[in-house]
């Protein structure tokens, strides 16, 4: 659940920056740093597409992955790994962009830093989610081996609920 909330907030931040980049929003609310300088630099584009738009697409993908209901344990594990992979890659990309802000552009965009922080939180939440899924799998295997009475599943969640 926490991943879904974070991804939604991240998507809103990315949408705000994307609308600025395409000219719908003329001026960013930016009390700290220099958002305009960062968002108009060459690093604000990646393969001809605004970095903010890439971020928006990534956050929406994470939101869908976090909300998709799964019925099978194997699929649940695969989705948890996908969340870790997508958010892990995005954290590395955010770190690269932040290094450009600090050492090349010499300006900080508070919205970009907010997005990088959200993505880092999503990454850690995804790791926790993966650990939870693996714990639940182990508990299920133990449950299946029990012959007399099924073991109590403890805190393990059932497939079918949203991730995060």
């Amino acid at each position, binding site marked *: *659940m926490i991943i*879904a*909330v974070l991804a*939604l*907030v991240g998507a*809103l931040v990315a*949408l*705000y920056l994307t*609308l600025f980049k395409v000219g*719908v*929003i*003329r*001026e*960013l*609310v930016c009390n700290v740093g*220099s958002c*305009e*300088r960062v968002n*108009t*630099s*060459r690093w604000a584009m990646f393969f001809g597409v605004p970095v903010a738009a890439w971020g928006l697409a990534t956050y929406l993908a994470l939101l869908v992955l976090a909300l998709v209901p799964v019925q099978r344990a194997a699929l649940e594990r695969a989705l948890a790994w996908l969340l870790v992979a997508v958010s892990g890659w995005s954290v590395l990309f955010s770190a690269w962009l932040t290094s450009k802000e600090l050492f*090349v*552009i*010499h300006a900080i965009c508070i919205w970009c830093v907010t997005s990088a922080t959200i993505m880092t939180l999503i990454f850690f939440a995804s790791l926790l989610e993966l650990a939870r899924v693996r714990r639940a799998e182990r508990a299920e295997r133990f*449950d299946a081996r029990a012959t007399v009475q*099924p073991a109590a599943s403890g805190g393990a*969640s*059932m*497939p*079918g*609920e*949203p991730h995060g």
Partner: protein
Amino acid sequence: MSQKSARAQRSNVVRTQRAANLKPFYIGLVVVAIVGIALIAWSAQHSDASRPSIANVAATPLKAQGHLLGNPNAPVQILEFADFGCPHCAEFATITEPDVRKRIVETGLASYRYFDFPLGNFPNSVHASNAAACAGDQNKFWEMHDKLFEGQPDWSDESNPKGVFETYAKALGLDMKAWDACYDSQKHLPEIDADHEEGVRRHVESTPTFVIGTKQIPGAIPYDMLKAYVDTAAMAAKTATPNNSAPAKGKSGTP
């Protein structure tokens, strides 16, 4: 009933209960989305409202030269206050200005005068103005102007942009020794300051800002809007009594 089917039935019950428990979460998520989108919409409207508006201005004689393009005696003068480091100025210079030159300046409808107005937000703006002014010494101001705006991302973040400017100067076939000496001497800084002062005197707050006739228009306006202002100013010039406030002489050139 087998042990396996009993377990499956229990799982289904738990799943249904959890789905029911998640309803407030989904509602909360939708509320967050709605509030976020509303804030962004408000911000979009607010940012438009906070833009400086078009102002009526009295005809004010120029005290700075700027850089002139076209016929100085054209019936209408377009003044542009711009910053070489400003992205909106680059947007105007690369998208709209070619049309303005071809269809308005070259046809004699209006003259075009560029004033350096470094805002202070972009660290290399004055260096770029200096590079362009030095190219102007060899009658290549407008060519350098175009290269600076087209290549803005290549030099705006550099700690020393001179190397990039040199590649432009070489590409334009400038006498590099003279351009280099001019750039290092910074002899055009007083003119750049004078251009900036002209903008301050006219209460320019953002770049690009245009003065056409009695209108001062902020923003990278589209061609059609600019042409409409030129037409209005031309009509006014036709009907007005002859104006004896001759424009200041600028460094003219052809792009």
